[in-house]
């Protein structure tokens, strides 16, 4: 098997896995899922670090560093904001039980 075909195989299988794992998502979670997937492609940071680490001129270094900053914002910000959203989904279990009586939480 030639090397390009190996890469193609990984690609095609990943496509199917990507569709399969989210095929049963409820519309409730569309926003966090989009945001979480968004964070995952922040892994381009790895590529940005590699090209910056092998930069051969100042221009390349500067462009590479810009890419590193952008990719980090994508990755770190993406995971943090997704977690913030999901925190709200888990937190509501407690008040759900005492919704009728607990009025104080609304003012807070």
């Amino acid at each position, binding site marked *: 098997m030639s090397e390009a075909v190996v890469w193609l195989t990984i690609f095609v299988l990943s496509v199917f*896995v990507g569709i399969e794992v989210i095929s049963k998502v409820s*519309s409730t979670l569309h926003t966090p899922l989009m945001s979480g*997937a968004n964070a*995952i492609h922040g*892994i381009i*940071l790895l*590529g940005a670090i*590699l090209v910056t680490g092998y930069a051969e001129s100042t221009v390349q270094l500067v462009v590479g560093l810009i890419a590193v900053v952008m990719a980090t914002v994508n990755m770190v910000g993406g995971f943090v*904001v997704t*977690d913030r959203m999901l925190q709200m989904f888990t937190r509501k279990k407690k008040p759900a039980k005492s919704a009728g009586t607990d009025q104080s939480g609304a003012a807070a």
Partner: protein
Amino acid sequence: MIDTPVWVQLVYLAAAVFFILALKGLSSPKHARTGNLLGAIGATVAVVVVFFYAELDNVVPILVAIVIGSIAGVLGAQRVQMTQMPQLVALFNGVGGGAAALVALLELADMTEPGHDPGTFALIATAFTIVVGSGAFSGSVVTFAKLQELMTSRPVLFPGLPVIFALGVIASVALSVMTVWTPSMLIGIVLGLLGLLVGVLLVLPVGGADVPIVISLLNAGTGLAVAASGYILQNTVLLVGGTLVGASGTFLTLLMAGAMGRSVANILFGALKGGSTLGAGETSDRPVRSGGPEDVAILLGYADKVIIVPGYGLAVAQAQHTLRELVDVLTERGTKVDYAIHPVAGRMPGHMNVLLAEAQVPYEQLKEMDDINGEFKQTDVVLVVGANDVVNPAARTTPRAPIYGMPILNADEARQVVFMKRSMRPGFAGIENELLFDPKTTLLFGDAKDSLGKLLSAVKGL
């Protein structure tokens, strides 16, 4: 560049598995937070490992850049209001796409040096990443501007837009092919500029209500650009991570478009065909019936069954907590109250669930559209708070309307409808709502938080 050692390949494999588990977790409410955490761990480990094998130069500036990016990302993520979430996701997606395009340009610089023969596939992947990455960047910036209302949220059209767009796409393909024969930095930079142009032109004609679908599509685009850069850099974790996002993002886009009863092509290019500017900014002076908080309080207080339709306006007014109090009081009086959540309520599919969860509304009271649509006929009062398009019967009756075909909440089947609105301004989609002029409709004008407060004390006083 040195070869990737086996142990690093294995770490990358583990990171790729973590990404799959992350997406899997994110699609069920129970495991979503764990899933996100797994994704973060996988990404962090994969990034840290690079420093230990790759014999990099410029390590200090790189670390400084990472610190700067982390601070910016965390600050943005923590400061943003939940109402502004779609904008932030668009922005994060944009910088990711931009980074992918820059990485590909730097790789191209390396490939064009004498004595290097990168091969046909790598050159195609490079051209693809440059175009799609920069397109995702500029498209996301326009999306951000629309959602943040820095520019009009209505479709922007000008004569010749489709022609310029088509020429941009054709030129991108032609230059990508040229890259394979004679790779050069000049072509690479022109490809980047073309990508920027195509991205802007793709998003400009999309109307405000459809913008979330575009975010999802651009997200998938960035994913594929990252996957292609994985092939260029011969890096499996980039390939797998990017492909997962590209595939799941495309699928999610189709799911969302389905929830709106539209095709993706119709969302992107519908405005180009014309005719979708129904009611363009025109405010009708037809008579409506408006009432005071006391009138509405009587309607609600003596109803057996009430359904609340919350919309983006509720969240903008920060009135979720007051609404929840009102619902608690009504429930104590013996009224059955449910929330009807349209799949695209808010500015992004699933957005309203996040916003109400923030206000600690019990999960059991949130009903999805398909579950509750049959119940409107037996409902005494529907209270529409800051929503408009999701109850607009034009989606069923007016083929010219941009939202035609979108499944809506059947609020018009209830005995009484109360709209809480700030003004007669049409909704985000920019279309007038016939339901506002229905004889059974009462309008309560004012800021949602203010009106709900008055309504709450009026109901308490009954």
